């Protein structure tokens, strides 16, 4: 019943208070979960039956991801990416929570990216749950902690907790599922090194269509390190925004293809609060420090084609994939320590960037795959500053080649080379990177999503 009480409340006001959203979500969840009648457990198998041992412990698996890294260029790639024209890494984000000393990118030599611990189990007849913790050398990060409904009616499914958003196929995957060592450049630049990995709620719907169609809505808190960044502090002039700050939607559609072929198309968009604090060397008191507040809008599409003929060990299997992401940042200059800039207050910074990647992998021998990836970021790359000045920047490029050897379903070795040309203030910088990666998994045999 609660849903009928809550709905008019929301539609009656333009902005629901945070408490209302909570109430609405609570009501929705309670109604949906209990709407599905429980059914009696299945019949007991025959006495000949060979039942697996009863085990109420969660399934546990561990993935170890180690990388040897080498790069050749005038400047480390991770610095270039922070200074990339148009994509400048503002770090207006929740630095305090993420720890700014956290080094992004890889160090020369041996790296332990992380050790991923996964626990998964059915919670009860209504929910299943899992938790994934990425343990790094200097700490641990909670990647996912989710409960998900198992029996909502009408093709609905609700996910609550912290999770990788389904904002692009790539974003929903964990590092060990990637086809290359690193993320596509545009995902890394716009969504951050950890991707869009947020606390919130996701409601998705599998449509009763004669083809595959899933639609999803997500409401997320918005603590991402450089997207939907939120910085309001007590001494800041920025307004506090306590509600969920990101609203996001996606659609995945796939025709029913014959034989070994499969295609899936994804469309996604997001809008959220975005704030930036540009602090000078003296911090909040620096005469150059200024603060901006507004929104960021993202949209994108991806497509994947897979050909999986009935051969053993992945021989001749082919995956082709492409993705495109666009963002528009529209933030208003709210405060500036320099009084001369006072006339500009209320003007906006509008910044538009995009990027795409195209990649393919092919099983050229049993257990061996080769892959190529080409990327451009900044095809659209323009800023309009609060003073009305406009700037546009050249794009940056990266090409990658990899070979990997999947010894068994539980271990993989990979060799990858990247060659990038990055557009910075000082001009174009070229860097070559080399990776040797080893991924091992222990414990429960995990399933892999499409």
């Amino acid at each position, binding site marked *: 019943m609660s849903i009928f009480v809550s709905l008019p409340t929301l539609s009656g006001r333009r902005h629901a208070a945070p408490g209302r959203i909570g109430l609405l979500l609570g009501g929705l969840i309670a109604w949906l979960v209990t709407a*599905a009648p429980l*059914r*009696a*457990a*299945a*019949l007991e*198998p*025959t006495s*000949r*039956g*060979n*039942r*697996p041992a009863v085990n109420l412990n969660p399934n546990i698996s561990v993935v170890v991801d180690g990388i040897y890294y080498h790069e050749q260029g005038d400047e480390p790639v991770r610095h270039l990416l922070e200074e990339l024209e148009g994509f400048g890494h503002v770090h207006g984000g929740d630095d305090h929570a993420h720890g700014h000393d956290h080094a992004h990118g890889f160090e020369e030599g041996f790296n332990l990216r992380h050790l991923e611990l996964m626990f998964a189990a059915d919670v009860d007849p209504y929910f*299943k749950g899992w938790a994934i913790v990425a343990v790094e050398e200097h700490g641990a990060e909670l990647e996912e902690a989710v409960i*998900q409904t*198992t*029996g*909502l*009616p009408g*093709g*609905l*499914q609700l996910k609550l907790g912290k999770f990788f958003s389904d904002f692009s196929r790539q974003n929903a995957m964990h590092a060990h599922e990637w086809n290359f060592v690193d993320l596509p450049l545009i995902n890394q630049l716009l969504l951050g090194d950890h991707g869009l990995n947020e606390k919130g709620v996701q409601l998705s719907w*599998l449509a*009763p269509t*004669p*083809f*595959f169609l*899933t639609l999803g809505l997500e409401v997320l808190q918005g603590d991402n390190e450089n997207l939907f960044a939120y910085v309001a502090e007590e001494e800041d002039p920025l307004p506090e925004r306590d509600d969920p700050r990101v609203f996001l939607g996606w659609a*995945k559609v*796939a025709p*029913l*293809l*014959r034989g070994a072929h*499969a295609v*899936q198309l994804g469309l996604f968009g997001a809008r959220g609060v975005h704030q930036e604090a540009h602090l000078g060397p003296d911090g909040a008191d620096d005469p150059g420090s200024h603060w901006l507040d507004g929104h960021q809008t993202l949209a994108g599409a991806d497509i994947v084609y*897979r050909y*999986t003929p*009935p*051969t*053993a*060990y*992945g*021989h001749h299997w082919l995956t082709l994939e492409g993705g495109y992401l666009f963002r528009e940042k529209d933030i208003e200059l709210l405060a500036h320590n320099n009084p001369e800039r006072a006339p500009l207050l209320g003007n906006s910074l509008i910044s538009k960037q995009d990027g795409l990647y195209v990649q393919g992998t092919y099983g050229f021998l*049993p*257990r061996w795959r080769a892959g190529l990836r080409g990327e451009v970021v900044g095809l659209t790359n323009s800023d309009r500053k609060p003073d009305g000045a406009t700037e546009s920047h050249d794009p940056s490029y990266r090409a990658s080649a990899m070979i990997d050897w999947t*010894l*068994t*379903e*539980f271990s993989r070795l990979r060799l990858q080379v990247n060659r990038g040309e990055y557009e910075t203030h000082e001009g174009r910088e070229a860097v070559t990177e080399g990776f040797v990666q080893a991924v091992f998994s222990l414990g429960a*045999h995990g*399933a*892999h*999503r*499409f």
Partner: protein
Amino acid sequence: MFSKTSEALVQRRARDRGTGFQPVLHGQEAHATRGFAKASSSRFLPLLLAAAFSVSARGAPAPLRVVTTIPDLAAIAAAVGGQAVTVTSIAQGHENPHFLQARPTYIVQARDADLWIRAGAELEVGWEPIVLDQARNRRIQPGQPGFLDGSAHVPVLREVPEGPVSRAQGDVHPSGNPHYLLDPLNARAIARAIGARLAALRPEQAAQFEAGADAFVRELDRRLFGADALAAAPGDALAAQLEAGTLDDWAARQNVTLDGWWAELAPWRGRQLVTFHKSFTYFTQRFGLEVASELEPVPGVPPGPAHLARVMQRMQDEQIGLILMEPFYPRKPADFVAARTAARVAVVSSYAPDTQPEAYFRLIEAIIAAIKGP
């Protein structure tokens, strides 16, 4: 299978058009009605109503939609369920069900299923959890009546190596070898389990499903033991003799001539062969053949030269003349070994070729033919 899927989809569409029409059985009928609905609603409304009435008058409810992970299970379900079910299989006969990818098509198939039947014993572990999760179909979640795990209804071979079990022994399945349907006695048990489950889902048709299971078992027994033996003793008694290893003695005592699969493989009993993967174990054990070695050094790892050299040595020492393998494994290592040992390579799937009601029998007959050779 694909035609089956589209049939099911056509029926679904017909239902979703809101005509109130519940298609009875065949895709063609549903198709015809769909055509009506398309043509013009007002003109054909009386016709549609008449169709709807005639359907409800006959009292046959919509067929149960059964989706299985492997075609063997689909074929058995089709035989047991007859006209009261529509059956599709996720894996096709030429595919290795262990290495499927969780494709969107599978999710759509699972979404519409009333009964999901899997082989179990971790055969589908790489993709089934995702498909069941994404299908959002409560009827077929584990623990529900619409979820049937075949491995819970047969004695599964553990094949646990000595000492502690670990992945150093390859992709071992801690819950046992999942290729159990190649033992016809297990197929009997599975047919009865499917019949019982269909009956539980649709009690008003229980008698029909039990009769379907009995008919399948009777036909299987006839092909396994021969008509003569079946005239002398009930199939269950023959199966019990076979399981106890006393079938030949019993037949000699009773002066009954055994025919069928059992008799066909009589010359091969006690002989050795080599397989690519541990997939024919149940078959060879039941029919008294012996798998001397696999070409895979451990399950899931392709053969290397050192292991092949050992296999060849053993084949020469023990005069093993047959390598049995599925089409989805690479042919090269088998040909390499065969060329140096004068062995014959027989390629045959360990899964039913399609989902027709008699496809399971054709599977067993194809394996027998492959073993016997030209």
